[in-house]
């Protein structure tokens, strides 16, 4: 006679065992049996998968009280899934924080205001505006520029340890785009002081037969991969991500930048 383990193991034990696996495994285990299903929804599991400084980060969230109200009334399970789908705005509205669903690792997006964009404060070249489809209060719109230099940095100590992160530029083209089909842009990521990093050159707005490296995001924006880096313990200083096109012969127009999204590799 084969007895199933759910007769042997109490649900709390199953929850504890599941908490030692990964978020993906836990979600998958919901399809095993009714007891597993129930065990998988326990706060002890999802509380473990939340980053240890999660509540600190949320308490520093700058935005309206509704987000704080929302998150403070949630159970750990609800909070985990909420942060996976709804990044919260932190740091005076310049950055957003969320979680990668499969691993529980931290994801950040640097808003356009937080980036170093050459000539951004000269109204002739760049314009700042509010668009409702951005999570941030402002996005940068390129009117025209010859020297295109967009750079963002992030401290590795706020990232999850032992993770390979990928940086993406989150952008759109306006109807008046120009120049990006003529000249490729340089995409670059480097880590800390000593790393030289890697540079890729691609066409951001390729014409017919040229490969397209950008892809569409779920929130309606486009993204292009700038590069990746490995964060071990968070003591490598800053990671720097940039997009440049500075040959000074071609004018560029019509690029709208929301920010730079930094998330673990292989996350959606």
């Amino acid at each position, binding site marked *: 006679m084969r*007895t199933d*383990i759910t007769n042997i193991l*109490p649900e709390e034990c199953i929850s504890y065992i599941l908490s030692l*696996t990964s978020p993906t495994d836990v979600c998958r285990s919901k399809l095993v049996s*009714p007891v597993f299903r129930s065990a998988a929804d326990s706060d002890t599991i999802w509380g473990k998968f939340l980053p240890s400084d999660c509540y600190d980060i949320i308490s520093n969230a700058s935005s*309206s009280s509704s987000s704080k109200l*929302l998150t403070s009334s949630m159970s750990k399970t609800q909070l985990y899934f909420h942060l996976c789908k709804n990044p919260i705005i932190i740091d005076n509205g310049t950055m957003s924080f969320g979680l990668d669903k499969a691993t529980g690792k931290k994801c950040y997006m640097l808003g356009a205001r937080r980036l170093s964009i050459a000539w951004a404060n000269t109204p002739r070249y760049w314009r700042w505006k509010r668009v409702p489809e951005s999570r941030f*209060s402002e996005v940068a719109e390129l009117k025209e520029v010859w020297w295109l230099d967009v750079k963002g940095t992030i401290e590795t100590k706020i990232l999850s340890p032992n993770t390979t992160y990928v940086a993406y530029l989150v952008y759109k083209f306006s*109807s008046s785009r120009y120049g990006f089909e003529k000249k490729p842009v340089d995409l670059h990521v480097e880590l800390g002081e000593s790393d030289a990093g890697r540079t890729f050159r691609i066409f951001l707005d390729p014409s017919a037969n040229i490969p397209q490296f950008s892809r569409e995001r779920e929130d309606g924006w486009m993204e292009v991969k700038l590069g990746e880096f490995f964060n071990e313990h968070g003591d490598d200083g800053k990671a720097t991500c940039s997009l440049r096109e500075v040959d000074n012969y071609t004018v560029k127009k019509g690029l709208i930048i929301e920010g730079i999204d930094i998330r673990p590799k292989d996350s959606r």
Partner: protein
Amino acid sequence: MYMILSLPGTDILTPWAFSKHLEYTWTRAAILTQFVQAGSESSPCELDQRTPLLSSHGSLCTQSFGGTYSGHSNATSPKNMGHGDHVVDQVARSLYVGYRNNATMDPAWFAAVETICMLNGCAMIHEALDTQIMKSYIWLQTVDGSIQQVEQEIAMFCPMICHEVIQKGMGSSKNYAISLPQQVNPAVLSLILDYCRFHQVPGRSNKERKSFDEKFIRMDTKRLCELTSAADSLQLKPLVDLTSRALARIIEGKAPEEIREIFHLPDDLTEEEKLEPLKNATDDPRIRLLNRLYAKKRKELKEREKLKNVEVDEELVDDRSVDDLLSFINGDDGDSKGIKTSKSKRKNRRRKDLLKSTSAHEATKNHNKESNGLNSVCRSAEVGQILPGVDATTNLQDVEDDIFPNKNEFDDGDIDDEIDPTLKEKIDREVEDFARRLNSDWPERMQEILSLGQEKKPVHLSLNGKGS
């Protein structure tokens, strides 16, 4: 309830010295006083029936042993002890155990001290103490009824057993064996005791312990589960951790069918439950409502800020591009002039309404969306399914007027701070319905618009030029 007896000297006394010490240093009165003070939860004259009692005139009575034994000075040699010698053995042993542990004592201790002091002859005590084994044992009973004795230091490694011994005074003899929880059968108990036997020795290195653990954990899955459950009931956390991690490694990365296979689980989720998308917090209707409120509040905040620094120019530009788009949709510029004006009139009126209700941004949002083409429309269809119904409906109302006859209702709904739940349900349903239709219709229509847009590009640009 317990007191720590303070004994002079820090060296461990030999049994003989110990008994001597008791005999000569403790007076009866002193013992009685301590005993009375210690027995806060129970009266000094009556403890539970397993411990020796003190009768009203101070002689030792032990009801549990079926008789009374009173200390008389003529009880000089062991041979003269009638049915009381079992008592002595018992008492002497617990006395010595208590002393050796040098920790909290149970009330039997005090009574025992009393007894021994009343007994004459250190020789007898010496013998009594000597015969008792230097080790002491704890008696355990498993669920099947079998009883065994286990060395004290090994058994006490389990918090639950420790608790039973110290707090309740159990485990001291066969009759008072500690009943282990039902999850602990003899086979599993033997495994647990092996574990305790190894780990309770203080001198082992971490490497040794790790190596032992790795070998220890090699057993079939069923046994591992039993072990986890048993260790959990005995509150033996290190073993629970060890076995749980082993089971976690087994589960990791496996598909549900494989897991069912390994653990011999019946496949008894209903088809519905299997097909239901992985339940997460956002399916909870409360959370969805909160999400909507959240998004709404965020929008309102943005709107209010925007109204403060509204740029008239910007709105004019946007207005024009939507008109363009509308004319594309209608097919040509000429014939639709009439329609266009009426539409724009309607839009203007609505815009005024919207402005009043602080939803002005939605009009401009539409325009931005449409000028960005397919992406944004598809996104708004998605948004309709996930996020606020309000978002999607107001977005598309300018373009597909006929589909929402009760738009005004939504506008009003927009103003309210409390969303009526029934209205909300209605909005949900309508949005989802529309989104579904949108997903099927729009790709073709937008292709159409885009292709038209490209043909008329020069015109488009100059119109924008006018506005800036």
